[in-house]
């Protein structure tokens, strides 16, 4: 009824609707721009005082007022990469099983449980990682790794239970649901004719799945990028299990820290101007790293698909 009135005034309802939607979309940009502006303003003092050294220094010493973000950049990238290494094969594998092999019934039950996993608050993952996974790693997994793979610098050190490995596993568990549910949807959306045609040409079941996977590749890569975004920014769970030291160590068994964990740890009690500003600059760097990593991932998708956007799930 109201649109009738609008028409009487000579404004098309379509125009109003379009304007409203455009405003909603623009709001997203405004919010992001405001966040970047505020963060940049807060980081100004630190940027001016420390300069580019902020990115390359490894020392973080609030007493001496010296701040370098490298250990945290390293920690964020390594923990997220480790999470992807674990979660991608697991996630894509289960998506293929759920979409291609399992019956519809099993598929929907397992997906439902997967989505429950995605709804668990990250603090709960943190507590689980701290009280359940950490002792398990310390008593069973890490001593075994040290004994059999200790010759690799990746598995040297002391079995603390918490550290980079624990953080990577927790992050992997947190991002698997994203990868599985999107990949499954994308696989289900690929035209069944692809599989039928392959089978008709004499392909095995595995080869037919390969064809479907190839068609779904852009969508699956998109799912992985989304998952990576979550891993890069995850704070609470990682803070609880990573061990929180600002030392760069090749060993996955050693403790580390991430950009979001240092902010969560030190922001509330930061008692100096430069100290506070350096923490805000970490947020700015995290923002930049997220943009760079996302851009690289998108470029990878483009390269991997040859710019193809016509297949299901390419959105």
């Amino acid at each position, binding site marked *: 009824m109201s649109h009738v009135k609008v028409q009487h005034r000579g404004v098309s309802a379509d125009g109003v609707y379009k304007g409203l939607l455009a405003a909603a979309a623009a709001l997203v940009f405004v919010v992001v721009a405001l966040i970047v502006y505020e963060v940049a303003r807060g980081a100004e003092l630190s940027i001016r005082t420390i300069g580019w050294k902020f990115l390359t220094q490894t020392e973080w*010493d*609030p*007493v001496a007022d010296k701040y370098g973000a490298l250990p945290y950049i390293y920690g964020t990238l390594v923990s997220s990469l480790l999470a992807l290494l674990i979660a991608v094969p697991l996630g894509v594998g289960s998506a293929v099983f759920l979409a291609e092999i399992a019956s519809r019934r099993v598929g929907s039950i397992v997906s439902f449980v997967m989505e429950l996993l995605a709804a668990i608050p990250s603090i709960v993952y943190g507590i689980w990682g701290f009280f359940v996974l950490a002792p398990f790693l310390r008593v069973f997994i890490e001593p075994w790794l040290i004994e059999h793979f200790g010759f690799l610098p990746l598995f040297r050190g*002391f079995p603390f*239970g918490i550290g980079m490995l624990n953080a990577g596993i927790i992050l992997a568990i947190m991002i698997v649901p994203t990868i599985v549910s999107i990949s499954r949807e994308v696989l289900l959306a690929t035209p069944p004719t692809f599989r039928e045609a392959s089978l008709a040409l004499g392909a095995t079941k595995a080869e037919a799945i390969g064809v479907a996977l190839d068609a779904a590749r852009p969508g699956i890569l998109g799912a992985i990028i989304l998952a990576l975004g979550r891993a890069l920014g995850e704070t609470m769970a990682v*803070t609880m299990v990573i061990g929180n030291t600002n030392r760069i160590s090749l060993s996955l068994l050693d403790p580390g820290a991430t950009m979001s964990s240092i902010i969560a740890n030190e922001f509330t*009690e930061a008692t100096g101007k430069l100290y506070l500003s350096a923490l805000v600059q970490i947020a700015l760097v995290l923002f930049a790293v997220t943009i760079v990593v996302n851009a690289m991932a998108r470029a990878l998708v483009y390269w991997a698909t040859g710019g193809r956007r016509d297949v299901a799930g390419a959105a």
Partner: protein
Amino acid sequence: MIRFQRQIAALSLAALALFGAGVAAAGQVNLTGAGATFPYPIYSKWFDMYHEKTGVQINYQSIGSGGGIQQVKAGTVDFGASDAALSNARLKEMPRKVLHFPTVAGAVVLSYNLPSVAQPLNLTSETIVGIYLGKITMWNDKRIAATNPGVELPNAPILPVHRSDGSGTTNIFVTYLSAVSTEWKELVGANTSVSWPVGIGGKGNEGVAGLVRQTPGAIGYVELAYAKQNKFAVAHIKNSSGNFVEPTLASTTAAAQGASAQLAKDVRTPIVNSSAPDAYPISGLTFLLVYQDQKDPVKAKALAEFIRWSMTDGQEVAEGLDYARLPAPVVKVNEATLMTLTATGKPVLAAK
């Protein structure tokens, strides 16, 4: 649909009731404060008790000492709270003169995980500094054994655990280490967070305690109250008079008592490494931060009276919540400071 409408109606009624309460309360004095999380349990108890007694409503947000100091500086709160006294440099950044009122004392205890050791471990300042600098790495080190005769110390590595989050607890602990070791002072120093040479970090008292409980050979520092409530094994520490002292509320109060002469000169003086024979050396005070010259005389009077009350009746409930009460000389210091409080230039409290 009908149920939904009913819920909406109920919510609106509740909102109205709240609004009504707000209007009714407009006549009374409301104070806001923000800051330290460590004293939050006793502060909220005090505010409740004081509200019942006088009707003065005090709202407190435990956002951390750093946040509390920021809010005081911005003038958005009537008082701040901090576990660390402001340094001279920080005081200069403030727009007006800020007064410190210590409210209660707390202690930081060392808890450890040595299943084979039944009696309390005796530690000295040298052994604690050695452990946290990474110079003492094994439990059966001669330096630890020297103060623990007859204790079977395991041949196991020591895992030092520290707080990963910025905290007043860390500040008290590293202030102590800086006071007893010039090496620590030069290499690491004291702050709410420091650059730890060794060990791993846990978030909060519960993070440190969790790591210590889980890992045989670990040692970590937590607040006395937290250790008491969870019945942790805690080390006895040698104080500067040469006695090994168990961390208790009484030995924490004794530390403040021992430092009372210095506190009378400057209430911000750390009370760590007290020379009193029965003092536990890793102790500290927590403070309220108040502008000396207040803008609103009514609020100023309410705040001053609250602080006076917290020094008398307030102290009586401190130990029930595992905070160490202030010794009489420190209460006197606070009462003297209160008399210097002014509102738009006029004294807030009449001389007794």
